[in-house]
């Protein structure tokens, strides 16, 4: 930089690339969003639930280890039926390690994904206003438009904010569960046998994060005031849920009017707990004895094989396309 009279200096450095400028939008936006204690709290609750699931995985791992001190300790207190269950599991693992480990992980991931889904909806309600609505309300959108950035660059930057925040809710716990859950298992082969369940969980996370990110951005772009954005998100969440429940009575696919219902069914169709159940009971009649009183109200329409994934996925793609259209139209007029 060369100094001119009067204190004004010329800047002669090399400008950063477009991805770095997009990252600036993301990083600054993330910082603004994470100023909210409530949002940090939601992420904390999600992570705490993940810690709990890690504990469950550790305990399940110990169940499959016949000489586990922990199992002996618990068995002394809970009696023979517990030890019977532990022995049953151990033999199941020995006979069908791939099905047992995969099954346990699918159940854990299914339950965890329900929590992450709810956490995502709550988190979005807390930061949706700080995305595009924030810029529209304060006219800051003009500043972005006046820099060497296109509308696409702006969207990529904003998308990064939602994607990373949702990543903290989905990706970090899913990967941590797999890594630490298996690290505490008695056998390293658990890593291999649970890999399929991890891939399923990652695909669920990717679909949920992309569809929720687009929906959050579209809702944010619809509002010109930050408070309206929050209300709109909560309203859409609750109303579409209610309408979906009503519509489902008439036509089973009517439930897909709700984004949450779509994602819930996609999660179910990905993990297929009905098949896990079936496998477990077929292979070990012992399960029939101990789980005979557990209700099995699996959705019928979702036991249709690949079609179970296709329908909610198609609806999510449709919602994504509508969200993109809203974003395009709403920011064009600014």
């Amino acid at each position, binding site marked *: 930089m060369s100094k*001119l*009279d*009067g*204190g*004004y*200096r*010329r*800047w002669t*450095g090399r*400008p*950063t690339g477009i991805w*770095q*400028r997009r990252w*600036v*939008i993301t990083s*600054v936006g993330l910082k*603004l969003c994470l*100023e909210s204690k409530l949002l940090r709290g939601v992420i904390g609750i999600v992570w705490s639930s993940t810690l709990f699931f890690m504990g469950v995985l550790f305990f399940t791992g110990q169940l499959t280890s016949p000489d586990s001190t922990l199992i002996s300790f618990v068995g002394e207190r809970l009696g023979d039926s517990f030890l019977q269950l532990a022995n049953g599991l151990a033999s199941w693992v020995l006979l069908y390690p791939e099905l047992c480990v995969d099954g346990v992980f699918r159940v854990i991931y299914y339950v965890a994904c329900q929590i992450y889904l709810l956490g995502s909806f709550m988190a979005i309600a807390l930061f949706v206003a700080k995305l595009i609505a*924030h*810029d529209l309300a*304060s*006219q*800051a959108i*003009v*500043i*972005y*438009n*006046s*820099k*060497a*950035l*296109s509308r696409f660059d702006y969207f990529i930057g904003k998308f990064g904010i939602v994607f990373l925040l949702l990543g903290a809710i989905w990706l970090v716990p899913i990967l941590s569960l797999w890594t630490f859950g298996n690290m505490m298992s008695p056998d390293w082969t658990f890593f291999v046998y649970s890999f399929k369940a991890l891939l399923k969980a990652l695909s669920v996370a990717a679909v949920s994060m992309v569809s929720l990110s687009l929906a959050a951005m579209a809702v944010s772009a619809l509002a010109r005031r930050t408070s309206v954005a929050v209300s709109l998100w909560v309203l859409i969440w609750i109303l579409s849920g209610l309408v979906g429940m009503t519509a489902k009575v008439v036509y089973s696919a009517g439930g897909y009017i709700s984004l949450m219902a779509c994602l819930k069914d996609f999660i179910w169709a990905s993990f297929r707990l009905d098949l896990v159940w079936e496998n477990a009971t077929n292979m070990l009649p012992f399960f029939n004895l101990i789980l005979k009183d557990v209700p099995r109200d699996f959705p019928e329409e979702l036991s249709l094989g690949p079609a179970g994934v296709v329908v909610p996925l198609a609806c999510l793609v449709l919602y994504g396309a509508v969200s993109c259209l809203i974003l395009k139209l709403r920011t064009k007029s600014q």
Partner: protein
Amino acid sequence: MVKIIETDKLCKTYGAYRALDAVSLSLDAGPIGLLGPNGAGKSTLIKCLLQLEKKDSGNVNLLGEDLDVAGRETRKRVGYAPERDCHIPGMAGCEYVTYCAQLSGLPFEAARQRTHEMLDFVGMGQERYRKVDTYSTGMKQRVKIAQALVHDPEVVFLDEPTNGLDPKGQALILDLIERIWKEAGVSVVFSSHLLHDVDRICEQVVIISQGRVLVQDSIASLKKKRRPEAEIVLLRGREEATRAFEAQGWTFDDLANGNLKVTHGHDSLGPLIGVLKEVGVTPLEIKASPNALNELFVQALREGGANVEA
């Protein structure tokens, strides 16, 4: 000299309303005033030059680059301070300017350093560490100018920067705009509906009314130009004076206020004063006709529907 802005028959309409009507301009580097009443098309012209609004037709060259070809990359060389507030709530002044610098392509360290230099340049003190939401109108204007300058542009567009400021605040902002060209060598395109502001700091002026360019010239040249007319306030010697004017072949009219309007045909008032002196008439006052800058501005205001008399 390099032309910083060249437009050829630039048109922009909003529905049936013609905001820019075949605007053709050719402007040199320096402080440029965009003058016209509210709704004349100044902001639309700036927005079209910055591609914030899509033009309907016509060609635009900014800093020697055809906007249709160069696209948004030209904005790396351009700064813009919009008329309305555009800060990001929750950010301190220095954070906001740093962020704008980074959006313009400065690496973080350089952005931080340059932010402080620019905030010093626009006269912001410790208040730079306060949230922008708490700033006065004057401070917000200064921060807007700082963000427009932070990436060291070649030309900066300031849309009505003195709006909403008290006279002292206006004077401070005008001083600052003057320094941008004089000290930094950055061309300034400054839009205003106040003749005084443009007259004070600009070298070139574009007067716009109802989307049309009434004139594009240097301020000095427009100030020199005036119709060869004068209004004379006489208490005595009216007949002697009119006879002398007839002898010179000059035409004259009686005005409703009782004064005499003479078309003398000279650039200065010297010959008129000489003739009156010869016939021994001492006028109470001789008012030269307004210069072209004033006249065209008044014309723009009239076309814009403003009450000029008021």
